[in-house]
């Protein structure tokens, strides 16, 4: 997640169960566009029920705007359930692949150390670059990114945030 998207607003993570049919992703993203909302991150995948997909969408807005987008999503016939996730009761994860530049053997050691500290995996280690796979909560991802930035991040790929509310909440 980025730092902030405007004033008076907040980040909201929406968890949406939809019919698993072609065209639904288009309709959901179209709704965001037509209601003047931005999607910061999105992840989509089929659930335990093969007829149902879960979309996890991160967006930004004030309370009234977020409530309105939730209602509009709820109104869509293809959505089965729409939840505005409560940050404190939810497990969030994002998987990110970073390609990082290596200036020296020392850099390589430090990146390996950093990866170890964040529980990240290292792939494709070469003389001048390394790929790191990190699956972590958004703030952890952000912290890792900041620490890796001085080495030079040359490429990034993110899955978008996946989130599930804890049981009993």
């Amino acid at each position, binding site marked *: 997640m980025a730092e902030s998207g405007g004033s008076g607003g907040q980040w909201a993570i929406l968890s949406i169960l939809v019919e698993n049919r072609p065209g639904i992703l*288009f309709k959901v993203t*179209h709704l965001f566009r*037509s209601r003047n909302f931005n999607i910061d991150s999105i992840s989509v995948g089929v659930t335990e029920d093969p007829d149902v997909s879960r979309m996890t969408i991160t967006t930004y807005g004030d309370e009234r705007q977020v409530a*309105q987008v939730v209602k509009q999503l*709820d109104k869509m*016939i293809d959505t*089965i359930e729409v939840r505005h996730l409560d940050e404190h009761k939810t497990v969030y994860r994002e998987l990110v692949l970073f390609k990082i530049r290596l200036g020296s053997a020392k850099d390589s050691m430090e990146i390996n150390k950093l990866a170890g500290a964040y529980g990240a995996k290292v792939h494709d280690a070469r003389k001048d670059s390394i790929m790191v796979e990190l699956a972590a909560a958004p703030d952890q991802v952000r912290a890792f990114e900041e620490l890796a930035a001085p080495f030079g991040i040359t490429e990034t790929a993110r899955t978008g945030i996946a989130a599930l509310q804890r049981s009993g909440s």
Partner: protein
Amino acid sequence: MSRLDDGAGKMIGAEALMRALRKEGTRQVFGLPGGANLPMYDELYKSDIRHILVRHEQSAAHMADGFGRVSRKPGVCFATSGPGATNVLTGIATAQADSAPMVAVTGQVPVSMIGRDAFQESDIIGMANPVVKYAFQPRSAAEIPGAVRKGFYIAETGRPGPVLLDIPKDVQQNEAEMEFPDEFKIRGYHPWTDPDIASVEKALGMILSSQRPIILAGGGTIISMAFSELQAVAEALMMPVVTTFKGKGSFPENHPLSLGPIGMHGHAEANRLMTEADCVLAVGTRFSDRSVGTFEEFEKRLKIIHMDVDPAEIGKNQRTSVAVVGDVRASLRVMVKMLASRAARGDGGEWLGHVREVKRYWKENLKIHPGEMSAARILRKLRSALPPEAVVTTEVGQHQMWASLFYDVIQPGTFFSSTGLGTMGWGFPAAIGAKVARPGVPVVDIAGDGSFNMTENSLATSVLEDIPVIVFLVNNFTLGMVAQWQRTFYDRRMIGVDQKHCPDYVKLARSYGAQGLRAQSLDELGAAVKEALSSEVATVIDIPIDPEEDVLPFVAPGTPLKDMILPS
């Protein structure tokens, strides 16, 4: 009807379509054929469903829309793929903006050709998605009956709207074992909620403790036919009633508590009293900018009770004090019951006295345009010449707003207009659809010359299909509403508005085999309407008026209702 008896069996998709439509009660479709829907038309030929041929698919959609608004059952229109389908888009968007039930059926290129830019292929599902309540594209013949059943259900329940069925040609032609299930499940659609008794109770308490309560009735009141409930609540609480333009005629406009529509071209007394109220019971409205102007001005001290069937409307345009989600008729009915067990509010006290005073003042003091054929005079003449049950549609422009100002709706639910999208050309085909739904009553399109031009070829449909309606053509020889804005906001730099007396509408009507009359005095007008009412064919009454007449009062966009521009 031998082939179209109910029951499953092996048949082609197009036959299943007719059977399913028939099961939904469809007696006629408005449409125009082409290559991609020929299999449907061939089955239509064999069925007892009436086909009403249009001269442009946009009109087919407007006819289905007019039929749907009046009958509250989805009207059905047919169009071919590609340009046929894109031609119905405006009609679909119009129905969506005004929550009108409709099922549009388009042909599509065969499944194997989809996505290959085939001849007359258009991604109508993609184009229509933002302006439909739902869209289906069955990919196998066996899916058709279910899609029709669900389509009708979605179109007519909850907040109604248009549904698109886009059927590839091979899906129409393929044979399958068909079933016509009554039961089905749509996991993400729950249109009915029980009336929320606790919120109604709270709302009632709020009204009873306020000093200057008012009812704002929107289009939802008409869609749910909550006429008697609305009247019962207004009378029991002695609350004056304003409406939105779309809600016009949800409450009899000759009733002592009626103040008429608010808004950009609302009645002066309605706009004035709306801004003085301290509590508003808003029923089935989305607080559109055209209705409420800049509302923030007084919303702070105004308590707003919002009843609506669509939870997404609550808080969309307006902060609310109490939200009552549910069918507005059911919610009002609960309120009526609660009121029955309470002492009546009496005479409405000081507030109602003030309301009467303001109403009387404007009745006596609102200036109308000079001349015998002013808008006010011709529309009042029309009102007095028509029976209360006559159905009126309008086009879009000054004449529409004059109809709102000067044509009083007496029987609720007899006035329809393209209020949300503001589609010129809607009124005439919609009147034809309305006449099909209610053949026993006169149906009149209050038209402007510019709007009538857009769909005037529906005269052919009206004449040939024997659906006689009346076009009350308020002819100012210009695109008058635009001309008024150019006069008011652009220092009279008039461009693109002069219609230059072309065509001659009397001759035009006659060339289609319709009756063409011209009325240049109120007496001639009275006689013309009388003749039209007894005519067996459509009648166009051309009524020349002063091209410079403005619609007043006028609340300029972005200004509060209290800052009305009044006639000088």
